[in-house]
């Protein structure tokens, strides 16, 4: 067989192997062991008892549903605001568009601890919101350690991801699609449903996946803004391990989180391709 100086398979493999082995050793193996732990019963052997125990507990079920609910809410809100914002940003002249784009992605680079901490200052008992309400003689409202606080924190944390995905989708949209539809007499609602949505579906799916999985797996925001009152799966996991050394529940939560992330990925991707086919 002829061999190319550049097509040598063994060289290629030996260059990729270190990275692959490293990732496998540090992720695949430990995580796999962790996940398998929940399938071992109290007397050894295969068992699903950790799962049935977990879902039998109403407090845990509530945490599960709350995580899912907040994930969905944050994703939907981010999508709605994201469309308006992305559309506004794309309509700017290129130079200011670049600047605003930079400001939108800026928070992504800043420590999430700092980002979440800011909300503590804003929503706290003596925070800005309550101080302002106080000026009007309104009693302080409790924001901290509520689902609302966690929701706001997550929304601010992940919205840039949605906006960025939507902007790049809109930039790939034919520039005359919207004006053309308007000229043909379509209302804004029709333009959105018939033109913008189908053409930016992929961006929506990418952004949606990032926001949803990000919200599910965020730790700092629920920990700081939700505390032990508003537990989410991540904070519950941490609590079970540190407070009760309950590794079985931790393992169950870990698998649920991973499955939810993968599931969201699959469902959203399927949604994108199916819709594209019917739209075509």
């Amino acid at each position, binding site marked *: 067989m002829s061999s190319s*100086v*550049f*097509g040598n398979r063994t*060289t*290629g*493999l030996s*260059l*990729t192997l*270190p990275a*692959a082995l*490293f*990732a496998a050793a*540090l*992720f*695949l193996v*430990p*995580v796999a*062991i*962790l996940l398998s732990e929940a399938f071992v019963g109290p007397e050894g052997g295969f068992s699903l008892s950790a799962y049935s125990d977990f879902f039998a507990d109403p407090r845990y079920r509530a945490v599960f549903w709350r995580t899912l609910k907040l994930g969905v809410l944050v994703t939907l809100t981010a999508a709605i605001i994201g469309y*308006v*914002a992305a559309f*506004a940003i794309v*309509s*700017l002249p290129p130079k200011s568009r670049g600047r*605003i*784009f*930079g*400001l*939108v*992605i*800026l928070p992504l*680079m*800043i*420590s*999430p*601890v*700092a*980002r979440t*901490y*800011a909300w503590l*200052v*804003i929503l706290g008992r003596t*925070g*800005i919101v309550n*101080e302002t309400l106080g000026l009007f003689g309104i009693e302080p409202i409790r924001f901290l350690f509520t689902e609302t606080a966690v929701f706001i924190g997550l929304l*601010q944390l992940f919205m*840039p991801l949605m906006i960025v995905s939507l902007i790049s989708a809109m930039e790939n949209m034919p520039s005359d699609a919207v004006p053309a539809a308007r000229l043909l007499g379509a209302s804004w609602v029709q333009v959105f449903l018939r033109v913008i949505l189908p053409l930016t579906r992929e961006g929506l799916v990418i952004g949606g996946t990032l926001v949803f999985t990000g919200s*599910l*797996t965020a*730790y*700092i925001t629920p*920990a700081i803004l939700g505390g032990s009152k508003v537990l989410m799966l*991540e904070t519950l*996991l*941490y609590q079970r*391990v540190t407070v009760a050394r309950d590794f079985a529940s*931790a393992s169950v939560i*870990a698998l649920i989180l*991973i499955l939810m*992330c993968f599931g969201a990925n699959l469902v959203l991707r399927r949604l994108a391709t199916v819709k594209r086919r019917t739209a075509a």
Partner: protein
Amino acid sequence: MNRIAAWTVISLLLVFLIGPFIIILGAALSAGPVMAFPPDGLSLQWFEKVFSIDSFRSSFAISIWLGLCSPLAALILGVPASYAMARYDVRGAELVRLLVSAPIIVPGIIVGLALLRYLVIPTGIGIGLALFLAHTALVLPYAVRVVSASMDNLRADIEEAAVMLGCSRLGAFLRVVLPNIRGGILAAFILGFVTSFNEVPVALFLSGPGITTLPIDMIGYMEITYDPSVAALAALLAALSIAIVFAAERFLGLSRYV
């Protein structure tokens, strides 16, 4: 959308996204003993206090070390891998890609717990080393993705041209590939630094006596005190990130690679 509407939307958005940082800065400049905005009088005392707290100094040093060493190690692993996947017909390249990007798919807290239980405890390696390995794996996907993107912009035949002109295979890589993907490598490094420096979930379980990263230390401090020094630190961190990203964008066009 008309101009006024567009700018209104954008202003509201930026107030929501950026406003909180301005508030942190304001709170940090407060002269009073508790967190408040607007601040009761201006002073830099809380910034001074941040620098006088020993644990912040040591956790800052650890975070900086991690932020520098992990991307470096990730690049040492990731550059050859991305190069090989771009240039060679590597069997199972897709599998490698998936494997290498697993760290971003699997939630960090799970990774941290798994490493603690099945690497640190059984092998007895230090927490610091485990953190370094975990962060390396965490930034490896970015290294591979960013370097792959700049490899894709580079034609394969320039290496063949270099070989024709007398370079060895390695020489061709060093002389004509490396200079052309330098920007991508630097971008990956900066992205890796920021990721590692800000990382919380993995480090949550991987911290122990004397080994704590700055974000974890901050969370711990916040739980016991409510003075504006955390705000000062948060403001400093935000400023640091902004400075790094701004410089990177200015000199490298970082956003091309993200």
